């Protein structure tokens, strides 16, 4: 307990220091709210993508609204281990949950009973990104999507892709859509850790990789990986020479990866409105924008407010449920 308390104090001091210097663009809290530190639950481990986002946003919301956050990591179960504790916390706005689109697919598949658009209130989404398919930089059997597709058609089932294993995950659903639209067959290999997925491609143990650009940016910069297909409705400017899935003949609306912040349903309206405003203002701070740029999150519109988030979640739930019916997954 002692260690956690010390950590919390230090975090508070650190955050207080940073908000004092930026007191000009403040969002004012409702009376009495925010006097004590808020808890931000992160359902993934320290240092990971979600953890970094939560800390960056906690800092930004501290700057604009004078809030102190204690970030608590509760990793495990693909993000589900954190949910019971979040649901047990009182609906007073002092407990905020960071979560990614895994929660939406888990709900659609019946793995969790909480509907993120109904049982939780999304405050905002601050990272929305698209997926791509990557090959090794020095790959000579194929160099772009056209030559890869020809190779895959010539060797059905012998082409392997490093991907996530969870049945019904965004990754596997998108790949199912792509394969059936184009009539190709790619052997999906389930790698549970990101490092293993990247190593498998670089080490030549698989032929292609499914990932989001922000996560493999260093490999893109060093030329060890290169994208051959963007799975999104348009070509983002940074990848202007990479075709989109619709351009190569796959006609479906692409699912995206998104991360955002939630409170429990039942939190008083004025507190939800305040936290949602604080999130929007935090998103626009220079530091946060810089953070999103470093993760390639500025390539497409990466922000949704509460209404926008609910629409995004509902659309995703519908798409997942339709796909699960076709694939025979879940209830």
């Amino acid at each position: 307990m002692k260690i956690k308390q010390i950590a919390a104090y230090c975090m508070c001091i650190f955050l207080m220091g940073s908000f004092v210097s930026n007191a000009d663009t403040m969002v004012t809290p409702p009376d009495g709210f925010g006097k004590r530190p808020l808890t931000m639950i992160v359902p993934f481990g320290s240092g990971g993508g979600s953890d970094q986002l939560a800390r960056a946003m906690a800092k930004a919301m501290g700057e604009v609204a004078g809030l102190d956050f204690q970030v608590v990591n509760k990793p495990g179960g693909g993000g589900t281990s954190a949910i019971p504790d979040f649901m047990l916390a009182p609906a007073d706005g002092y407990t905020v949950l960071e979560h990614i689109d895994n929660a939406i697919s888990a709900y659609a598949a019946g793995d969790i009973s909480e509907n993120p658009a109904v049982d939780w209130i999304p405050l905002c989404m601050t990272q929305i990104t698209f997926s791509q398919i990557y090959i090794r930089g020095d790959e000579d059997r194929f160099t772009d999507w056209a030559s890869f597709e020809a190779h895959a058609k010539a060797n059905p089932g012998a082409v392997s892709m490093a991907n996530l294993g969870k049945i019904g995950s965004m990754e596997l659903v998108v790949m199912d859509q792509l394969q059936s639209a184009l009539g190709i067959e790619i052997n999906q290999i389930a790698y549970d850790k990101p490092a293993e997925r990247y190593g498998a491609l670089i080490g030549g143990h698989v032929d292609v990789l499914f990932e989001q650009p922000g996560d493999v940016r260093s490999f893109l910069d060093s030329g060890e990986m290169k994208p051959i297909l963007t799975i999104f409705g348009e070509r983002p400017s940074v990848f202007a020479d990479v075709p989109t899935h619709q351009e190569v003949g796959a006609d479906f609306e692409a699912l995206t990866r998104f991360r955002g912040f939630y409170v429990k349903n039942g939190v008083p309206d004025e507190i939800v409105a305040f936290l949602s405003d604080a999130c929007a203002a935090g998103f626009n701070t220079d530091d946060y924008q810089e953070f999103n740029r470093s993760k390639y999150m500025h390539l497409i519109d990466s922000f949704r407010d509460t209404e926008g988030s609910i629409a995004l979640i509902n659309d995703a739930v519908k798409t997942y449920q339709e796909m699960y019916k076709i694939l025979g997954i879940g209830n």
Partner: protein
Amino acid sequence: MEHFIIGTWMLFGDLEALFIFVLGLLGGMFFGAIPGVNMLTLGAVILPFTISMEPTHAVMLYSVIYCSGVFGGAITAILFNIPGAPENAPTCFDGYPMTVKGMAGKAIGAAVCCSAIGGVCSALLMMSATGPIANWAIRAFGSQEIFALIFFGLAVSASIGSANLWKGWLSVFAGLLLATIGTDPVGGIPRFSEWSILNWEYKSYYLSAGLHFIPMILGFFAVSEVLVQATAISSGMRQRMKASMEFPSIVEFWKVRYTMVRSIFIGFFAGILPGIGATLAAFLGYSQAQKWSSRKANFGKGEMEGVVASETANNAATGAAMIPLLALGLPGGALTAMILGIFQIHGMEPGPLIFKNSNDLVWITFAAMFWANLLIVMLGWIQTKTVVHVLRIPFRYLAPIILLLATVGAYALRNLMIDVWIMFFAGILGYFMRSTGYSPAGIILGLILGNLGESAFSKSMQLMNYDFLGFFSRPISGILLALGGLAIISSIWTEIKTSRSPQSAIKRTDN
């Protein structure tokens, strides 16, 4: 060499860097040496501070914590039979019996020197060829080879720490079974986390995350040790341990030189493979030392060579584990994953470009790891003279402190209460296992390697289109699997032969 001197200069010439270095060295050793908490706890606690630090300093700090934390875990293993981390578990086998015999100082001295030697050697290898080694390892070792190596590791290490081969294998199998709890690595199918009996339905989001090895270690070692000691005290059998401060002599080290060299190679090799790391290194180092030693029979009864073997191997693995992280951006364990997070918090990514873009950072890290390993000897020497006095504290005061710290350590890992319950359950189970000759270390080995092995096996099978013979069409995996198979057959043969020998018949009638 020139880079190394510049790195050293940046480290010692900059007061702030030096301060952080010393803090990391002491912090890692301190957290490693307190039963219950470990270097991961420290890493998670100070993560928020690193945001405001210079990236060079932050990365250096964690690499120093990594070096000294792995050593710190040996101290509790030797003094209390409680390994600070899974890679210190084999250190208990001989380190603790040495303490019981009143040779705690010698055991800690051996652990100190060997940790330093293992660490320094792997730091040197790391400095000489990080890029080429990482590139070789990533290409030569696919899932098939990793699975074969894990199989080999289990085959040769299964019986250590148990009364006989059968009990050893049963312990490992129990660990492998526990490793299957939670979401499976391929299809994400829940296992043992939800079931229904009659009308009672049970579903646990917590268990879907699987069992973490840290609460299990705390339970099997710390809690069960408290129970074992408590029984000894209440039955009036416990003898106060002598707190000796004698350091091992150079002659004693010279006698175990081959074991040291072997463990350095084993540690380095296991360390560079992402995900395999120090635990397998320590178990392999120990089992191989036992196999080749002329004092085989003394292993497990307080043989210094056993401490040497496991401590050299696990510290050699720390330097090696930094190789895939720095050169390829691929972390192998929990602490290296935190280091990756620090890079990213500062908007940087380790990988091939880091040698071009952040040469300073790489070399100050290398220099810090090298010096941290050297300084371990000095700090360790001081510790030998001081920490050993903890043994003078009456156990009735020490026991509640150990239980309290273990509870904090189990909870702080993921902030989940279930980990605390798992720890106490494992503690009670561990108590009965130890009194019947089964091996808690075997369960831990099975649990850790079971997770890694299952994931490697399932990936291999997918890659080979479910053709098992594919393992034998690749030279490295084929040889490792064959060697593992041979090791199992020969150990069964030896066990049967010795249990039929007249001597063991006498032993059986004695019992």
